């Protein structure tokens, strides 16, 4: 009898304190999902820390962005949204918007205008690729190479097309284990004009042509599935050159002093930004909006570039980009958008890939297993 009572009492106590904790959690904490590593670190310093100081709200970092889309869908289906704000690549943001998993946003209403009064939607301009998407940075997928493995008297590689040149640059290559960017590079370096790439890639012959070009280096290529892997391959000297994200290369070169050089030609621009999960309760939504207003203004976006070499998505932030916070080096030359780096570039064609991703992916995977 006594035992039962004790049990009941302690159960009640646990439940009560659990609920109290849950309430407390709601009031002062916000879960923000991002990519982890150097990127989360730059967000922590540029947005989270100043915001926490200003508002007293605690921000919890969740490094789940690589599985962000799947988890957002799972949370929506379970009816239990635990995330407040999610950092996603543009293509994924379009997906969650299509699926109704993210909230549509009136950019001018929610976000701060530029200091000169330009409205947010004009300041971000074309970067707003979906109604749910609040752009933060422009990054690029480009190439890094081992400076110590370039033979003497040979000009170091300049860009994507040198990957296919096994004669001048022998050695292993690293490429992403998915079709995006690889297919475009194959065609561009096979002589297809930039403006025709996606038209050619739409046809069966065009796809065969891209695969044939990739075939020439297939047995010399290690396919990576995470950006960290690509950096590790380069740092260990496992590959001579590899595609990866420019910010990761920057941190390997400048922060860790690896003997790696950048090959910018035909880098692929891509966007990264925030989405707000759909159907957040009102109090949490209000808090997220308050955070977003602060964290996406002109100064904050420019601040992020002090910690990582990704270009701010606002036009008005670009002139404010200064030097690296710890190394003190000028960041502008390391930005993908710097004119000398951006001689030949292309932009990830999100709408095209939305249509062709399933089809090309199964062909690409079949090609890999052959």
């Amino acid at each position: 009898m006594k035992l039962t009572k004790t049990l009941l009492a302690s159960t009640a106590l646990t439940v009560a304190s659990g609920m109290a904790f849950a309430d407390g959690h709601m009031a002062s904490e916000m879960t923000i999902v991002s990519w982890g590593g150097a990127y989360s670190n730059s967000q922590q310093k540029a947005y989270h820390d100043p915001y926490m100081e200003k508002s007293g709200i605690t921000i919890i970092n969740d490094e789940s962005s690589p599985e962000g889309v799947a988890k957002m869908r799972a949370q929506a289906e379970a009816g239990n949204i635990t995330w407040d704000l999610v950092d996603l690549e543009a293509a994924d943001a379009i997906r969650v918007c299509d699926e109704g998993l993210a909230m549509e946003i009136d950019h001018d209403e929610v976000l701060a205008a530029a200091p000169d009064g330009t409205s947010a939607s004009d300041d971000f301009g074309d970067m707003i690729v979906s109604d749910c998407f609040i752009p933060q940075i422009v990054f690029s997928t480009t190439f890094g190479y081992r400076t110590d493995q370039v033979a003497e008297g040979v000009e170091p590689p300049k860009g994507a097309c040198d990957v296919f040149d096994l004669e001048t640059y022998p050695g292993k290559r690293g490429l992403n284990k998915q079709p995006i960017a690889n297919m475009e590079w194959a065609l561009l370096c096979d002589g297809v004009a930039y403006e025709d790439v996606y038209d050619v890639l739409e046809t069966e012959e065009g796809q065969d042509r891209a695969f044939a070009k990739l075939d020439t280096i297939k047995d010399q290529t290690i396919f990576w599935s995470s950006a960290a892997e690509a950096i590790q391959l380069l740092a260990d000297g496992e590959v001579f050159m590899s595609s990866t994200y420019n910010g990761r290369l920057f941190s390997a070169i400048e922060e860790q002093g690896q003997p790696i050089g950048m090959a910018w030609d035909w880098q692929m621009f891509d966007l990264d930004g925030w989405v707000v999960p759909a159907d957040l309760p009102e109090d949490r939504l209000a808090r997220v909006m308050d955070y977003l207003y602060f964290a996406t203004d002109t100064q904050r976006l420019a601040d992020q570039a002090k910690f990582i070499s990704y270009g701010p998505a606002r036009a008005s932030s670009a002139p404010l980009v200064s030097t690296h916070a710890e190394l003190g080096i000028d960041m502008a030359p390391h930005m993908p958008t710097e004119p000398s780096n951006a001689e030949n570039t292309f932009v990830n064609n999100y709408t095209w890939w939305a249509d062709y991703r399933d089809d090309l992916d199964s062909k690409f995977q079949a090609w890999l297993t052959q």
Partner: protein
Amino acid sequence: MTRASDPTGPMMAADGTPLKTSLNRALRRQKLRALALIAPLLIFILVTFIAPIADMLFRSVENQIVSDTLPRTTEQLAEWDGDSGEIPAPEVFKALYTDIFIAQERKLHTRLGSRLNYELTGVSSLFRKSGRRVEDMGEVYQDQFEDLNDFWKDAETWNALMGSDAWLAAQTKWDGKSDVPQPQFELREEIAGVLPQTAATFEIFADFVQNEDDDNLAKEDPWALVYSALYDDLIAEPDLSGYAGPGSAELLEAMAAASTFETVDYPAAFEKIDKDWHDIEVWQTIQTYSPDFTSGYFLNAVDMKKSPDGAEMRPENEQIYIKLFVRTLIMSLVITGSCILLGYPVAWLLANLPARTANLLMILVLLPFWTSLLVRTSAWKVMLQQQGVVNDTLVWLGLVADDSRLALINNQTGTIIAMTHILLPFMILPLYSVMKTIPPSYLRAAKSLGATNWTAFWRVYFPQSVPGIGAGSILVFILAIGYYITPELVGGTTGTFISNRIAYHISSSLNWGLAAALGAILLALVLGLYWAYDKIVGIDNVKLGG
């Protein structure tokens, strides 16, 4: 009456009930009590394990999204003959207009687009584009009605026309505060008889505004779709003489004018949005995937696809899954085999060494077991890569030339080495616990009877250790077949498993139906192999110890 007087009757318990019943009752109570004891665990497993798996597997056949999003179109399309070479009739396009209009208001059309895009490339943007431009089609009628009479411009007059008096009164009284619920729209009875399509469409509109958008119906102008429905009703010239409610004069006026209205040619309008709407293949795909349940995902999981003429193989350059299933099975077998080869001697040592040394050895076996999987996998990367420890040593020893270092990782070899290492404890531990129970005297007895070392081992010791091999093999094989992270990290392109594709479809492509189908096949394979093992070896022969 008593036991003594009727020896042939049933035995009675003390309270007069037959002993059998009484015993049964006691037994049942005992069973219930036992069930109550395990109930928490049972419920826990059902809720957190069985139910989610069943739910996930169910997605492999689920396909309601097509008929839910395009209910009118799929119904109309059922009569269309896909082999005729003709695009569907104009009614189908009209149904499609209604369906897509409602779907884009609810933001469901892009979702359906991505679903159908799994089957036919290009449908995703077709739906996205159509969703953006479908409103223009309805505005043709909306503009003409509004030009005719300002009556049609206003949310209030529409509500007066369509809503019942009771609802109108309640709505006027409602103050628009969010904590008082908005009075639910109620249709005026007379109007449904006169304007059936308009009434039905307006009800959908009202329901959407009030319940999904949470807006005040009195302030929302009707969708362009409502005007199209009104036009369709009026052009059929309904008998308006019996209707005397609000707007009756305007209705008569509109009916007279409607015959002179500019009309919308739906097939042509859709062709203008995208010529793909006149592509037979698009319609065949919608028709093929109209039913609520589909075998499409399962067919896809075995490299086939649904076509109007039944299932057929996919083109050569898209076939991957059967290859991956076969590869997963073969490599799991190889890994199991190498675990037996490496684990057996270790387990034998463990079982036969003096306790102190055996304990030390045991710790060496368990230590990697306790180390994080990722750490061990990454360690193998450092060891096996071309500039890694193994290759460096071989080059230093002069066994391998510097320019032809061995490729030990990012291929099948890498997966087999790393996974054998990771799964080895699962082989050693059951083997050890079985070997521990084999009395050493048996071996001594065999030898004293003249057996050589080999015969004593092979004829006496080995047969007794087989149950351990069985248990270890089942464990290792089943774990290996579903392994994901190690093949992903060290497998390169040739050493990845089917589970890597499942993970890709769950987290990147969001094609959960296909992932569920692949998972269901994998589960069936494991259960099938387990069954086969039971038939051939007998599951009673498996021992985890004792």
